[in-house]
């Protein structure tokens, strides 16, 4: 009896011990400096190339079914000549309190020990709940089994699944690259170094606007930048606790002296 109780309390701890699930191995974070980002879209293409995103064509694009896991939103204020254009790259924010995760009935999207919001394609039954709940509209659905026209399929990244019809997907923070870095570090008997994980978008970004790193490593560049006074997070008021941190664009307020 005592043994049984012990076992129960042991198991209970696993679920209830404060911080058991919050004690993360890493907390991967993306810092995006909006003052550097010029909206060029190189990162968008990098994501297509790295993550086997299908090209869906004009008609599907017209239906808002373009597959980009990462998009550059462009907002325009004012009228000629006082025009202000602002760019912001938006991908999955890997919310620590992710609304999408609440929605999924089958745990196809959940939080892992690296602080990532992960998506298990095989488990998804396609209820769309996660995408509906996601305030950032970053989730993409496989409306069909998309074809990679031959021989373009030769470029498919073997480290990343090609998803089939009926499942949801979204930015993974390039989890395959995180895995590779962690495996390598493990083989070499050390921890992952700052800068060792470069998601495809970060790697490509010509202006160097994106910085990726582990928030739990206080010396990482990302952790340092995350303390910048320019820091803010998108739709912070929703309390989803995103892992993507933006640095404010430096821009004059009010009308500029144009003309």
């Amino acid at each position, binding site marked *: 009896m005592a043994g049984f109780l012990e076992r129960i309390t042991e198991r209970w701890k696993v679920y209830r011990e404060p911080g058991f699930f919050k004690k993360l191995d890493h907390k991967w974070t993306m810092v995006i*400096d909006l*003052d*550097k980002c*010029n*909206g*060029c879209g*190189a990162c*968008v*293409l*990098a994501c*297509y*190339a790295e993550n086997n995103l299908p*090209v869906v*064509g004009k008609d599907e*694009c*017209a239906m*808002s079914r*373009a597959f980009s896991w990462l*998009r*550059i*939103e*462009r*907002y*325009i*204020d*004012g009228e*000629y*000549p006082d*025009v202000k254009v*602002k*760019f*912001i790259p938006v991908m999955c924010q890997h919310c620590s309190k992710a609304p999408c995760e609440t929605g999924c009935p089958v745990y196809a999207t959940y939080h892992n020990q690296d602080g990532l919001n992960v998506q298990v394609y095989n488990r998804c039954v396609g209820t769309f709940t996660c995408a509906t709940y996601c305030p950032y509209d970053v989730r993409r659905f496989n409306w069909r089994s998309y074809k990679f*026209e*031959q*021989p*373009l399929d*030769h*470029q498919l990244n073997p480290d990343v699944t090609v998803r089939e019809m009926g499942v949801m997907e979204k930015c993974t923070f390039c989890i395959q690259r995180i895995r590779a870095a962690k495996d390598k570090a493990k083989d070499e008997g050390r921890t992952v170094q700052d800068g060792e994980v470069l998601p*495809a978008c970060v*790697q490509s970004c*010509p*202006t*160097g*606007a994106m910085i990726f790193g582990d928030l739990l490593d206080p010396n990482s*560049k990302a952790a340092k*930048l995350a*303390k*910048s006074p*320019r820091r*803010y997070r998108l739709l912070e008021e929703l309390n989803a606790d995103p892992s993507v941190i933006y640095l*404010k*664009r*430096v*821009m*004059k*307020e009010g009308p*500029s*002296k*144009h*003309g």
Partner: protein
Amino acid sequence: MKRRDFLKILGVGGVGTGLGYFFGKASKPPAAELIPYLIPPVDVIPGVANWYPSLCTQCSAGCGIHVRVMEGRAKKIEGNPLHPINKGKLCARGQASLQVLYNPDRIKKPLKRRGDRGKGDFEEITWEEGLSLLSKNLTALSEKGETEKLYFVSSQTRGSLNSIINNFMASYGSPNYMQYELIQNKNLLFANHVSMGLNNIPHYDIANTKYLLSFGADFGTTWLSPVNYSFAYGQMRQGEDGIRGKFVQIEPRLSLTGANADEWVPAKPGTEGVLALAIAYAIVEDGYYKGSDAASWKALLSEYSPKDAAVVTEIAEGRIREIAKEFGQTRPSLAIGGENLARYENGMSGIVAVNILNHLAGNIGIRGGVIPNSNGSRTIDFKNNINALATAASASKVKTLLVYNTNPVFTTPKAMKTEESLRNIPFIASFSSFMDETTAMADLILPAHTSLEDWGDDFADPSVGHPVVTIMQPAVSPFFNTVGIGDIILSLAKGIGGKVKDKMQWNDFSDYLKDAWKANYSKDKDMLASALTFDEFWNQLLARGGWWPADQAKVKSVAVSPKGIEAHIAKASSRFEGDEKGFPLYLTTYAHSSYLDGRGANLPWLQEIPDPMTSVVWGNWIELNPKTASNMGIKEGDTVSVESPFGKINAHVYLYPGIRPDTVSMPIGQGHSTYGRYAKGRGSNPIDILPFKEDPNTGELALNVTRVKISRVISSEKMVKIEGSTKELGRNIVQTISPDEFNKMNKEVS
């Protein structure tokens, strides 16, 4: 199926990579390709990626790349982190060049014309047949003593490929090798030559400047060296020193780069050169120029007082003087003259004006200013341009034309009648891997490798203050039955025989390349100083991706003197064709960030990723100021006909507040009539309706030269854009702080 058969198929499907294994392979039967897997090449480990350093050829910037190769297939392209031009970064076009390699619309075999010219009716032939057909043609020409009637037109080509073509043409006896592509920066080169005595493009040190005054340079997407400048832009904004550089953009339509500027100065189209001179005048007049020759500058610029210029440019005098003050006083400042400025009819003098600004502010030869590149001066034959070819062809002075990697039929105005003049040429051979508009005119197509399958090298121009040479090496074995362009030329030389063959005794182009590098190696002190044997040096070169000195070259100081420059100062603003009444709107065109001059339009990735400024995909559009549109009763998405005195095309309307109400703007790159399933029949090509105008000094084609009128037409085709709404509605999506606040902040980590 037996397990062994299964393995064989596996082997054929995943042909191995191995350097030195790339040539002559195409003709071998498939069984031969099994060997590498039965005896696996050392560098192929299934499931493990190799990264091959090479060169991006999607534009002339010359970025260094790393190609990720697994089991013989290229999987991804990233920037070479060691490369001084792009520092590991890569633009969308560069990354998409994978889809050049694996494009379903590649020409997979040599083709011979069967039907009428230009009708696209070809039959497949073997390489032996193709090469002998062409060598016979050239031999015949040479026997008739008409070697000068052979013309070779290629894209802007540098390095060993350029030299082997030169070599070949010289051995054959024809002076008519010309380079043409839409964007060649000849105006910039010429202007820098006459005002600074430079023979190449200097390094514009955007990274370290504190005040950047750009005259229509879209350096974030297409101008000169976009990745280098984008990186520099990031540095300028949030550099290590924590002082944020200010950036002012002068252009009639906000480009992507302009959209990031702190201030936008929408001067009237064609008057930017005048504005530059007015700023120069103000710098001298208001005493920011400290040189002893201030008086002579003032005299020289006397016609360009800010007061007068204000009327012409529609920019207030006060604002001109303010810019002059900021530009003249901020240290260091930098003025750059981009495509938009260079592509007026007197574009060259616009750039001269910009150089004057840099001289007056003392920006030449300093960190954060204009840093001359000491290396690799380049000789540009300004007269030998595409118009020379067209004229010769019309006059039946061209018997045989060889075309490589350039598409003049698409990139020259209809008014120039390029297509008609090409029809006068009895024999055209193209080495293109794609059925572009010019290749469709060919009689013989000998498809060359794409850059991921071939050897080559490139001398970056502009460089970054010191020489940067990039080696292009095959990352994968040829995917189709194609041959490298250098090897095609060597085969031709052999086929022609005689002195041509004697002068070109290389086994293949990789030997040629290596020989060229042996010469470089033995001449260059820096290279020799590394104390390596040539083979060690060469291997290191391949492993690194190219050669650049370990430390930055010394800066050469160049002064611009007012003498002699007079002749090149614009006397007035640039002219536009079409009278103001009938054609009320200025048309400006720009190379699109993805399609560039049209070459990117056949890559599905580039069609699918939204245009940064309009979010339009799979088509093109014309940008109109919302006020202009509402006056005309035009709504977004409407189709309009765009008519100049030289022609008419249709386009969809995109309403863009970032454009002058008297100006409309169209991207170049779409409107292909052939060029594969992804490019064909998407939108229209604005070059079609331009007059044929070139800068008389340089022969550079002018693009911003006509007015247009627009009117609504009915069309079933729809414009597809990705954006929902571009209004932020106070939702604080892109949050901002003012520069003052920023300056008050503690220095940030970076």
